[in-house]
């Protein structure tokens, strides 16, 4: 499973059951990277992507099979984290409130790549790819 997640400076993902923010250029980048492959996600996340995006709905990333791309907008259960093959992490480089944070042990993962790029409503976004 390849997880794609967006976090703020505190590792936050959600506040009051809502995503912290969105950025249309980031969404476009995720689709570009997916290259037409199916994106797995919770129903809440589907509205973020344009009509026609190949999406497979799931209750949690625990349902995603090996090799699947999963767009994560909640925390990853510990059991599911064992299936993690790659983590594609986007950083908002902003501080938002959060009550759901990513608890994956990123510090123990190997950083394979980091790239900064401009967003639409964020001056600089950061993309990082990790191998557990």
């Amino acid at each position, binding site marked *: 499973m390849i997880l794609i997640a967006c976090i703020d400076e505190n590792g936050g993902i959600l506040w*009051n059951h*809502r995503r912290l923010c969105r950025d*249309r250029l980031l969404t476009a980048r995720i689709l570009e990277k997916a290259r037409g492959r199916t994106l797995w996600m919770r129903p809440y996340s589907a509205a973020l992507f344009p009509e026609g995006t190949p999406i497979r709905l799931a209750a949690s990333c625990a349902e995603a099979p090996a090799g699947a791309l999963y767009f994560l907008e909640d925390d990853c259960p510990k059991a599911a984290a064992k299936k993690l093959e790659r983590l594609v992490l986007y950083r908002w480089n*902003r*501080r938002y409130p959060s009550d759901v944070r990513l608890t994956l042990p*990123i*510090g123990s993962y190997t950083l394979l790549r980091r790239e900064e790029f401009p967003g639409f409503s964020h001056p600089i976004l950061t993309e990082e790819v990790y191998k557990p």
Partner: protein
Amino acid sequence: MKQKTIRAVLLGLFAAAALTFAGCTAPAPAPNPASAASAAVTPESAVSESVPADPSGEIPAYSGEPYTAVNGNVPDFSESDLSSAKAFESYSPLDSLGRCGPAFACVGPETMPTEERGDISDIQPSGWHSVSYDGVEGGYLYNRCHLIGYQLTAENDNAENLITGTRYLNIEGMLPFENLVADYVHETGGHVLYRVTPVFAGDNLVASGVRMEAESVEDRGESVLFHVFCYNVQPGIQIDYATGDSAEIGAPASSAAGSEADENEATYILNTNSKKFHRPSCSQVGRIQEKNKETYTGTRAELLAQGYTPCGTCDP
């Protein structure tokens, strides 16, 4: 800025009129506990890292987090408040003690700044002291805290929009919520109904904290919805809310509090390189390189035994 001031006054009058009208036609909104607290709280002073007690019981005592959700994280806006996406700003006149009241706005692209932020150093909000401490990020304990942040309504030296707030309130408490609203407006061009109410206990000159409410208008809160209380505290510093006087928490008190905290399990962020540990909400956490960052759940005593030292900013 003159035009802006006139516009703000007119819009404020419009908003006040709209609120009055709403009170006649819409079902009575739930009482605002912040207002009740302002009127009923017995003054307290010489407190440490805690704010004067909230007699309504709605706002829990400060427990190490910069903000807490109240009212189920649902704002107290009325149907009438949410009926229009027309931008406005409304600021309350200062009371007889020179204290701010609620600031209310419908934030949208129209209200956001188009020029660099101006100087606000001439304003002295109630309880203002210019005082610095080594352990406070940026040095100064107090900031002139915008009730409605500059990034949302471009207000500079508006005395009705500035309170004496700790650095911690400003950066760890309020700023994240302002960022959330600002970025939503930038991304969507939509509007957010936004109200910030300073909560003063009795005649205290320094607010115990601020109540922040927000709801995205066009999608009726689907994207932005919150109702929180942000604590006007500063870790490691005692504040006398009656006057704004302050002092570093003394060694005996600190060690007594520390020994209790040492026994309690909590989550910390570790910098394995510098051997510092932080609260998860600490502003320094974002600066730790990922390879040196670890999340740790356990007791403070265990971390101290492992050679870690507490961060000077968040004082975990």
